């Protein structure tokens, strides 16, 4: 217990507006406080409802402010690869990356978007440990393409970064609490598929 009190875990969720990052932050934060552990989350995004860069900071444990300092993320959960590369500044040598294998084009006319291979090469060259997941495929398998976020959450839980705080069952409980039955079921399926991926 003593150890748990001093513990601090920082997870940053990055992607594009509309990908369900804020919901993920709520699931993680709620699960932590349901286990009696403090959590603070913050979201940073610009003005449009959709389509802009979004980052959600999730801090669990002995923390007093909601923004993760640079290089202090224990994990980066990347729902989109351009946004992942943009936010690598939050990583240190021990940070684990869990990445959705997906590029979403920024809405600028005549823009050339970087190829997936190039982005992955940049990520590889950092020397960081990373796992690439085809979340869209698994989400469709779970029943809806919009559950990609929860697929990625399953993969995060699998890494054991949060093992002293929550397990798969705890997250399932939160999902059941937060969503109507039918939607919860699809999401729990997505969560498990991500966990097993």
């Amino acid at each position: 217990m003593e150890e748990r009190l001093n513990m601090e875990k920082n997870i940053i969720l990055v992607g594009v507006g509309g990908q369900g990052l804020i919901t993920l932050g709520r699931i993680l934060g709620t699960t932590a406080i349901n286990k009696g552990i403090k959590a603070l989350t913050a979201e940073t995004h610009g003005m449009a409802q959709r389509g802009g860069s979004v980052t959600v900071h999730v801090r669990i444990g002995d923390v007093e402010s909601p923004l993760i300092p640079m290089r202090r993320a224990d994990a980066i959960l990347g729902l989109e690869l351009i946004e992942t590369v943009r936010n690598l500044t939050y990583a240190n040598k021990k940070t684990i990356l869990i990445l959705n294998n997906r590029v979403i084009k920024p809405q600028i006319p005549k823009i050339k978007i970087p190829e997936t291979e190039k982005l992955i090469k940049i990520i590889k060259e950092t020397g960081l440990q990373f796992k690439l997941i085809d979340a869209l495929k698994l989400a469709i398998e779970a029943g809806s393409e919009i559950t990609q976020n929860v697929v990625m959450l399953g993969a995060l839980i699998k890494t054991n970064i949060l093992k002293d705080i929550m397990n798969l069952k705890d997250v399932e409980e939160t999902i059941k609490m937060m969503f109507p039955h039918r939607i919860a079921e699809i999401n729990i399926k997505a969560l498990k598929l991500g966990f097993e991926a």
Partner: protein
Amino acid sequence: MLHPILSPPGSTVLLMGNEAIARGSIEAGVGFASAYPGTPSTEIIETLSKIANHIGIHVEWSTNEKVAFEAAYGAAISGVRSLVAMKHVGMNVAADALMSSAYTGVEGGFVIVTADDPNMWSSQNEQDNRYYGLHAYIPVLEAYDPMEAKEIVKYAFQLSEKYKHPVIIRSTTRLSHSRGPVKLEETPKIKIKGKFKKNFEKYVIIPSNARRLRGKLIEKWRKIREEVNETPFNKYVNNGSNILIIASGMAYGYVMDSLKILNYRDKVNILKISTTVPIPEKLVEKALREVEKVLVVEELEPIVENEVKRIAFEREINVEIKGKEHIPLKYELNVDKVVEGISKLLKIRNPLIEETIKIEYEDTVPIRPPTLCPGCPHRAIFLELKWAAKRMGLKEIIHCGDIGCYSLGAYQPFQTQDIILEMGGSIGVANGLAHTVNEPIISIMGDSTFYHACIPGIINALYNNTPLLVMVLDNRITAMTGHQPHPGTGITATGKKTRIIDVEGIAKGIGIRYVKTLDPFKVNETIEEIIKALKYVKEKRETAVLIVKRACALMISSIARRRGIKAPKYQVNYEKCRACGICYNQLNCPAISSIENGKATIDEYLCVGCSVCAQICPFNAIETLRKPSDEWEQLWRRD
């Protein structure tokens, strides 16, 4: 499902700062709450509006911040506890009423929440509204996390009621939009009806009364300055150091986390200040006397810093006081900046600049500006505006823009917002330009913006014979701030049906002779109508109004999904597509992209079936796979 803020007392739930503020007001017995939406304040009233019917209180979206403020003040002078919320720039709109409210005071608790936006995440400036407290003699309270926010709201109501005086709570984007554990407590019985006791000397601020009230205000302020030395939210910890760190609001959390990183939590003295205005002078004096060096950490302006320096000067305390020298004046604070500032003060190495990993990406990562959604009617009208100008051979049209989703028209490829100043500026500024330049002037505003601040400007234009075209982009909702209803929607904040106050009726009622309502999804027709209207303005030298009416695509597609109404479907015929790029470059719809040979492709998950691309394709290469159903058409009109 029950809203988490209605969970049973005793439970701890994860709440957003704004939800915590809403909960705090219920625990304080609020009976009336009003606001005009504005990021990052919106969720306070949004949360209260969802539970208003359940707990029986009055919650409303008002037409603008001034009205919201006055309405809440009205409730408070009848003895009902009331809350008004607004974004920081909304305070400017309400400032006239704010200043005088301090003179009259109130009866029931009256709490004003201003949500400031350091870093301008979604605003046009980063003004620090704590100055309003100093300016108006109104206390300003700041919390540092959602739990404290809830508690400080309750304290604000107590303070307000004790002194019969308005109280400001200053939140920021970071507090309003962060989530943390909040322990719920009992809610009292709520008073929703009051009684207004007439009092000529108190409520009628004609000069003779105002002069007396000014004296009383200064006297009241003296008492409040004493009172704040006792609040439990201001906290002084003496760790026996000769260094003191003073932090207000969110900065307190950043200081605590920074000291943890630096291993200094119990090696410096800490003074947490939650009553920024007025500052707890006795507490500050005591803390100053016990050290040699002080760092004031606060977001944006040096308000606490200046006060602390004044106290040191007036009481002849010989300490070195640093603030904005080490802590940036602009943008949002964070742990990185505070660690840097404290490291400088302590003259130690900043440990955060180590542990760098190698990243080579500068040229690979494109920016991702916010963008109009697929099927957004604003996109259609911006394209039509450009094409109308081209057909008329007009090179220089001045588009006086305004604030809303349509502000995004300022970006490539449209550039149909040449000036954006503040809400209502589209028409106000046009009133000047139209008399001083020769180019045609178009004033472009959203529907919510029209009700908020544009009607007096349109009357002004007509009254002063101003030749300009007014375009109201009526997407049937306040979209930018997350789809709040407004007077044109026929529904109130709490979901009650009400009369639709329609834009066309208002324009005609004012006396505008040229008023037409257009459907932006009929491309050619709309272009023709814009041309006609511009010609009318030029010939008659008179104000004309076009209302461009189509509901917000984001709202409609989510309703359609819920009701199982299928969107029409379009597909590119690759035989016919000649890779001209008009659809993906000029319309710039996120659902359309180019494939290797330059031909277009439509993403079926993103497309909402607006049909505009199909209409503008010069080769008729975009074909209808599924025609719009009547249900779908009706949904989009939302009359």
